[in-house]
């Protein structure tokens, strides 16, 4: 089986799995309706980032699309807009009475607009002069607390989470160089997920 067929089969399997979950767990809403909405503070994807997310793979994967914003007063340059896809994996779920505590890990892929950054090298440069510099990945570890609401009419539940993360470039430099210390490259983020 060639790569493309394998991918198609995988996509179908994932999709059916997701669809199956949705039809059994959430009876009324369509598969495209997000499971939760999100607000995050910091984490190299914006001062504040907002968006929506889906629970996949029997709640082993939380995938989100986010828009992040850094005002000029904070960035000390132009406004920074960031579009991010974030994936969070709960490592395990530990229940304490009405709350669920989960250590989490994951990664984000971000695209930043403007500010002398680009996805395709501008024509003025010879080919290969620079790699695209508008994309960054971050990785993180952290913890999440989940609580289901008793009255589920408006919201089903809430997550609060805390993360420590770093950016691909920074991690690469720490690996390359003993002069770049790990406490220089990690920073934290906090956030909230509200489940529909």
């Amino acid at each position, binding site marked *: 089986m060639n790569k493309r067929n394998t991918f198609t089969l995988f996509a179908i399997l994932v999709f059916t799995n997701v669809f199956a979950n949705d039809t059994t767990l959430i009876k009324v809403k369509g598969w495209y309706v997000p499971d939760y909405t999100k607000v995050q503070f*910091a984490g190299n994807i914006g001062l504040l980032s907002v968006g929506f997310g889906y629970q996949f793979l029997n709640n082993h994967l939380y995938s989100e699309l986010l828009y992040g914003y850094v005002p000029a007063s904070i960035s000390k*340059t132009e406004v920074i807009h960031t579009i991010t896809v974030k994936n969070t994996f709960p490592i395990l779920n530990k229940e304490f009475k009405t709350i669920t505590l989960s250590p989490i890990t994951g990664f984000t892929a971000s695209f930043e607009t403007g500010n002398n950054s680009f996805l395709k090298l501008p024509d003025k440069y010879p080919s290969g002069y620079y790699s695209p510099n508008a994309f960054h990945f971050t990785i993180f570890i952290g913890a999440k607390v989940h609580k289901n609401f008793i009255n589920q009419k408006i919201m089903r539940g809430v997550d609060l989470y805390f993360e420590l993360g770093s950016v691909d470039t920074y991690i690469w430099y720490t690996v390359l160089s003993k002069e770049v210390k790990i*406490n220089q490259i990690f920073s934290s983020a906090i956030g909230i997920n509200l489940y529909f």
Partner: protein
Amino acid sequence: MYKLHKFNKIIISFNILLLFSSCEKIFEFSPYEANVNTEFKNTTNKNLQLINDIQLNSDTFSFAFVTDNHYHYDNLRSVIDDINKKDDILFVIFGGDIADQALLKEYEIFYNIMKNLNKPYLTVIGNHDYNSNGEVVYKQMFGEYNYSFEFNHNKFVIFDDVVWESNKNPDFDWLSTQLTDNALFKQVFVVAHIPPFTDQFDSDMEQAYRLLMQENNVQLSIHGHVHSYSFGKVYNDSVNYLTVPWLKKPTYCIINVFDKAFDIELVAL
């Protein structure tokens, strides 16, 4: 789901907590931020003051030229440690490409390593330093892109000649003005990241630069950018051009300045 041993859990949690409590910055909002720490600001002026304070009773002195760090931080540190051991080197000029993607973090790592230098240093902006918001970071952390200073009756002109990334032509009028008083000095040294005979200069710019050097008795024009060593009279005139290797290997140059002459040492650690 797999189960972690309780002991491992404690160790992991403890490490995460330790990492959190030791983070230099608790929150970061974007790699493209230009929010330079107050302590790191205005570096050029602070160092110009330190150079101005050096007392010297001799015509002879040396300065080091280090360039094109990109992300070779360990080699930068080795070079700094070596320069620290040489008392005859009075100051250091860094020839640009301080950073690779020109992220604030890269500038901060550079700044922190340069703190280990036991003498003053100055910088010229390189083409990489203009990427992303690097232009803004550079201005805040170091200062003006073009500036000049005098040391021991010699003139040093630091010139931003980045073309593509800066979206502007080099300010040859400013350079010309700075060089008009050349007769007052024993020697004149010009520092710019990009050599006039390479990629970013078209033939008009190259000609303009060459003539300014020649007509104003510039003894030496010092550059980085090309990542290799070269020294000589490129245009068959009186002007010497020096290009210094990048920090992919721990290399730099020492320029020994005499009464009305100089020589170059290439140091490879």
